[in-house]
Each structure stands twice: as C-alpha cells, then as structure tokens.
C-alpha cells in the first residue's frame, strides 16, 4: 500500500485516494479543429513509462481535491507531490 501525502491533509493511506491517470493532459482549445488522429491522441493515447510518471490523484475520503504526484512505476517511490497548476518538478 502506498502512503501518499495530500498537499492539504498530509500523509494518508492509498485507500483514501482515487487514481486519475496521467497528469498534464490539456483539453484542446478548439476540438472541432482537430483531425481524427489528433482527437484520438488526446482521448486515448497515453504515456506509460517504466520510470518516473506524473499522475493525478484525488483525496476521495478526505478533502476530495485533485493534485499531482510524480512516482516511479517500478519502485513505487513517490518523488514529488504538487498542487494543480504548479509545473511538474
């Protein structure tokens, strides 16, 4: 079980959180202008690195706020926790 530090509530067990997948995927400004391939890229294509990964978590059983985590996908070590809007460290 991971121990995740919510930026607002502090360190809690993983079971209090909900996973949100890859972070920093910006919704296209003008979806109608995209080709099918560009839309598929936004909707379905995802990074899936073996190593450091920036991902979203939500403190579902706590403050219910979203935030970002940088975590290693082999060691599971949490490298950084940062609030939405902050750049990835």
């Amino acid at each position: 079980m991971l121990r995740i530090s919510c930026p607002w509530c502090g360190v809690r067990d993983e079971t209090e959180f909900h996973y949100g997948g890859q972070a920093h995927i910006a919704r296209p400004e003008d979806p109608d202008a995209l080709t099918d391939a560009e839309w598929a890229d936004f909707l379905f294509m995802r990074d899936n690195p073996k190593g450091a990964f920036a991902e979203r978590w939500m403190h579902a059983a706590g403050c219910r706020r979203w935030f970002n985590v940088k975590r290693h996908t082999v060691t599971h070590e949490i490298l950084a926790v940062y609030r939405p809007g902050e750049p990835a460290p």
Partner: protein
Amino acid sequence: MEKFSAWSLARNALTGHRRWSRQWRSPEPKRHYDVIVIGGGGHGLATAYYLAKNHGIDNVAVLEKGWLGGGNTGRNTTILRSNYLWDESAALYEHSLKLWESLSRELNYNVMFSQRGVLNLAHNTSDVRAGRRRAEANRLNGVDSSWLEPDAVKDICPILNTSVDLRYPVVGATYQPRGGTARHDAVAWGFARAADERGVDIVQNCEVTGIRREGGRVTGVETSRGFVGAGKVAMVTAGHSSVLAEMAGFRLPIQSHPLQALVSEPIKPVLDTVVMSGAIHVYVSQSDKGELVIGAGIDSYNSYAQRGSFHVVEGQMAALVELFPMFARLRMMRNWGGIVDVCPDASPIIGKTPVEGLYLNGGWGTGGFKATPGSGWLFAWTIAHDEPHPINAPFTLERFTGGALIDEHGAAAVAH
C-alpha cells in the same frame, strides 16, 4: 524430436526417466531472420509456431529477455472461456477456444486442458441484466452460454454460498460449460517444443533494447546480445507493449497495471468448476494439485513492479470467504503480481503499426491467457499477409482513430 506417447513413457521408465531428450535447442541468435518475435510467452511462441506451420515461414527467432513463460504466461489464473458480448470478440475468443479443444493433440503435449465450465456470478440487478444479455448474445454467436438462477448455480457448485443474507448475494450467473482451465506453463513449453521442431530459434536471456528502422521500415532489433537483423518484427510483450512502442517511436492507448493472484495450500477436490465474480473482484478454480488458484482485481495505479498492494488481496479474500465460507481456514501459500496492458475498451490490439514491417500484439488487459492459441494463429496470419485476418481486423490500432471501440469491460470479469 522425441514423440510423447504411452510407448515413449514406458520406454523411458525403464531407464529411470534419465534419458529424455531436450525439448528445444538453445541456439545463438543468427545475424538475420525473416521474422523476429519479441517475447517468449505463450502468445509469442504460438505466433512462431503458426508462422512455421500455417505459413511455411520457419526462419524465425523468438527473443525472450528472461525465461519462457516467466511473464504473464506463468502468472495468470489459467481460465479459458469465450463468452464475450460483442460479435467481434465472440469471434476472436471462440476461434481460440476451438483451437484449445484440440491443442494437446496438435502439439503432442498435454496442456491439461480441462473443460470444467465457468460461472460468472451476478450480485445485483444490473449484473443480471448484463449477464442475461451477454448469454443471449453468446448464443446468437454460437457460443455455448446460458443464464442460471441461483438454485441452478448451487447445483453446479454446491459449496457456493447462495444465501440471501450475504451482503452481495448470488442472484444468478452466466454459465459456459466449454470454458475451463489449462496448465499455463505447459502451454508455453508445448508451443516452444513444437516451434523448435519446425526450425524456430528460441533465444532466452536476450533482451531487446532498441528497434532499428530505416526510412520508416524496420530492419532489426538491438539486443543485449548484439544486433539481429530481420525482415519483419513482431512485438508480443503484453505488460511492456508501451515500452517497446516507445523504442519504435509511437504511442499506444495502453496503461500497465499490476494484477495479483495467489494460491492456497493443496486440499482434496472441492471445486470442479471455475467461479468468477466481476462485481466483488474474485475468481477461483482448483488446480489438479489441489491448490485453489485465486485472482484479484487490478491495482488502480500504473506500475511495472510485478507486485501489488496488500489491500487488494484483503478485498479479494473477503469476497472469497463470503462466497465460500469453508475456505476461511485455508492458508495461502504464494502471492504474486503480473503486469497487464489495459486498453480503454478492454479489448486487445492485434495488427500493423505506423512502422512498416513492425507488428503489434498486446493490450490484452486481464484476460490474454484464454486467447493464446487464437492470438498466435491470427497474428501469424497478419505477419505473413501483411494485413489483418478478418477476425482481428476490428482489433487494429486504427480503431482508436476511427472510433469503433469494442467495449468488453463487462465480459472482462476483472474490474479495471
């Protein structure tokens, strides 16, 4: 190659089983092959076997970074079935189940295929609606499947707790009698032996570290044992598909997650069918050794660690003990994780890639083992003809651009 038979068994018994020949060679990789298959799991070995057998392409190497069947092939819960909802999926998995039915004879290798039936339990109204619909859709596609009320479920599996007092009572189930199990290691070994016999080079401890391309066309692979050239390269590395795709310069709609399983201490036969519950995240069968083989749901986060969180196992065991109170005193012997590639629609990708001469078979999510022979058969066809077979044509990477997704989250039976 020594043929396995009652006669060869008796003959080798006379020499104390010390003179069995090696089942496959361990060759050094050649400088060039017509086809390189990356990944020596069941799907990769089946691909190589059917390339040689069905298409006469035998200048083939299977490159495996570890040992044969040491990845997801040896980590799954060995369940076979074909009761998927959509026409495309029913065609894919039923094609595979039909190959399973004659596989031991085909390979001259006992894969311990056992059609003990598979129950998929329903616990609430929406499960009932989805299950009945799926059973009817299966029948329209010629897949043996039916809907059972709780009493009929109890007849098939008497030790199942069908009391209405359960927090998640069993309110029915779909049942596929032709479903069952097979011994997963034997599947890898059987395909390896049969492929080797037809001239395929199986190279273990050979990790692919790069995919060489020239002018948009693949020319070979960089490996831990040097460069190996190839006319065509086939990636069959479920769990690590995205890592390989990155080497070849394109992205996939795949996320890798841990999926855990465990086995109990061996006990006398108590469970002669497979029981699965997608709603409460547990599925169980009993191996011929007597161990219960129990699977969980996936961990929510991306990982390549081949281990998962303990709270997932705790939830899985709570569900198991509620369904089978008699298992409460069993001790669990081993627990492990595999890395599954999950697509957004819980269906696999089998087809061509943006790189010419490079083919992809992956994204099987939590249910690839059941498809092993069919997947290899179709992938070999796709490689040989440089276009997908009609059965896997709906399962290409292009479906994510065209929008024709094949949503099998309901039939996948493992929550993700």
